């Protein structure tokens, strides 16, 4: 075997690693489409002029420096911004072709179809089992005990947590480590069979090993879901995502998407100068 010559980009990543997940059929249906979105907190415009779409069976990463409105964009997709009294949203967000901000759409329905995982693990103060069963219970699924157990088990398996907790489902969720707690939160979100999974910097409070586990679990489940992950860890975006959107605040600190495309393209051949500066560490 001769020495294999590999090329590295500026981050020291091997090119072959970036976006290494085989791109699912590029004709994958578009599940979420955002058009001309603007979110205002009080009198301050947080994000403006957001146009982007997210495809099924793909992971899309949203990256950018802190304060650029990544999380705000994410929260607009499942109407979590409704819970902030000062926030107002204009523009359109289509979920399977339906504008989720139109009057006859119930945010509760949207949130049960679009799951979300937060920065810090936030398991409920109940047992592991009850945490995963929570969404099934609040959404009024009429399930027998066995069905409930199976759904909980499926979710925990998908979240790569089952083997670690199968003997202690009745233990308090807070007895788990931080990384396990975050996977529990992913299981909790998956248990209600969402179509879309939103992750808001899910590994920011975790150690590298826990982070790697979550990244690999995301890759393993991506075929069934539309996954959108906010991160300011560029390596993470490069490792897990198929598409990447780069957000950047403009001079008025209004967050905008400056570049969107296949992850490999963004990292190897950014079109926007600011993207290049950002991923090479000159800003952010």
């Amino acid at each position, binding site marked *: 075997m001769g020495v294999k010559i590999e090329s590295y980009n500026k981050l020291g990543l091997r090119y072959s690693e970036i976006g290494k997940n085989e791109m699912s059929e590029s004709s994958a249906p578009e599940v979420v489409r955002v058009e001309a979105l603007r979110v205002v907190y009080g009198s301050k415009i947080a994000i403006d002029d957001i146009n982007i779409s997210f495809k099924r069976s793909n992971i899309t990463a949203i990256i950018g420096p802190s304060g650029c409105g990544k999380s705000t964009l994410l929260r607009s997709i499942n109407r*979590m911004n409704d*819970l902030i009294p000062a926030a107002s949203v204009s523009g359109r967000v289509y979920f399977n072709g339906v504008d989720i901000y139109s009057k006859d759409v119930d945010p509760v329905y949207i*949130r*049960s179809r679009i799951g*979300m995982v*937060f920065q810090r693990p*936030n398991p409920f*103060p109940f047992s592991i089992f009850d945490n995963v069963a929570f969404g099934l219970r609040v959404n009024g699924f009429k399930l027998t005990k066995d069905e409930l157990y199976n759904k909980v088990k499926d979710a925990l398996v998908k979240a790569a947590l089952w083997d670690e907790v199968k003997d202690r489902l009745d233990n308090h969720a807070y007895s788990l480590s931080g990384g396990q707690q975050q996977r529990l939160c992913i299981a909790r979100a998956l248990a209600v069979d969402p179509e879309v999974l939103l992750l808001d910097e899910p590994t920011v409070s975790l150690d590298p090993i826990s982070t790697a586990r979550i990244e690999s679990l995301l890759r393993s489940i991506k075929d069934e879901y539309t996954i959108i992950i906010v991160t300011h860890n560029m390596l993470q975006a490069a490792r897990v995502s198929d598409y990447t959107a780069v957000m950047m605040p403009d001079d008025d600190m209004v967050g905008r998407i400056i570049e969107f495309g296949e992850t490999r393209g963004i990292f190897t051949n950014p079109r926007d100068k600011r993207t290049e500066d950002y991923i090479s560490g000159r800003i952010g």
Partner: protein
Amino acid sequence: MGDQILAQYSRRMRFRKILDKVLPLILSVAVFIAVATVFSVLFTTIMTGWHRLSLNLILNYPSANPNEAGMRSAILGSIYTVGLSALICIPLSIATAIYLVEYSRGGRLASILSYNISNLAGVPSVIFGVVGLGFLAYWLGMGRTIITGAFTLAILILPLVTVTCVEALKTIPDDLRLGAYALGATTFQVVRRVVLPRALPMMLTGGILGISRALGEAAPILIVSGLLFIRDDPTSLFSRFTVIPLQLFNWVSRPQPAFIELSSAGIIVLLIILFALNGLTIALRQVLARRAEWA
């Protein structure tokens, strides 16, 4: 010239040095006065009344003969009125707190309503008695009865209990709420399944605080009920009644020393009840702390 300034400076420094040493002593004297007052009130009461403590005091009806007099009717009156007022007030307070913290999430209507709660808290307790008499007893025709007393006390302690309930809800981290909302829970589901189970012990602490306050209130009940000599047990919520602090007021107002001792003994009983309730809140707080270890 320079020496003079230096001397002046060092004199000032000496004064400041002494002040620095003395100030905590002066301040602790204030604490001492407060604490000493608590103890001297307790001490003199116990010294005056302890030999009058007996089962008669609890089991007998009031009497003109101090050796037989007890406060049975007052104790029953207190249990009925304060118990009923807690049943009215605690659910109202919890519901109010849930609306203010969970549903309104800082809306304009909520800020007006909560401003009125703090206004209600500033109304002197005797006024509640006057209005209880005028509005409940006469205008609504409820009479000067247990139920009128209970409603009067319930509204009197409503702000206090509500504020503790609001505090209790505010201790629940928002993370948990967001997590539940993100799974498609309604506000009510968030409250019932996530927030309330954690906040309830602290809310009950607030309830007990309200009960203690209501148990000690004499003025509003004096106005609502009058100063009565009651020699039978209350038969319904529409019975006339008296309460422990009023019975004490009655005894205190008599010139014979035996009744003064009797009122001291009655105060001991009342204080024992209040301290027991206080102990209950401390126990609840410990349960709370143990739960918090999980967080």
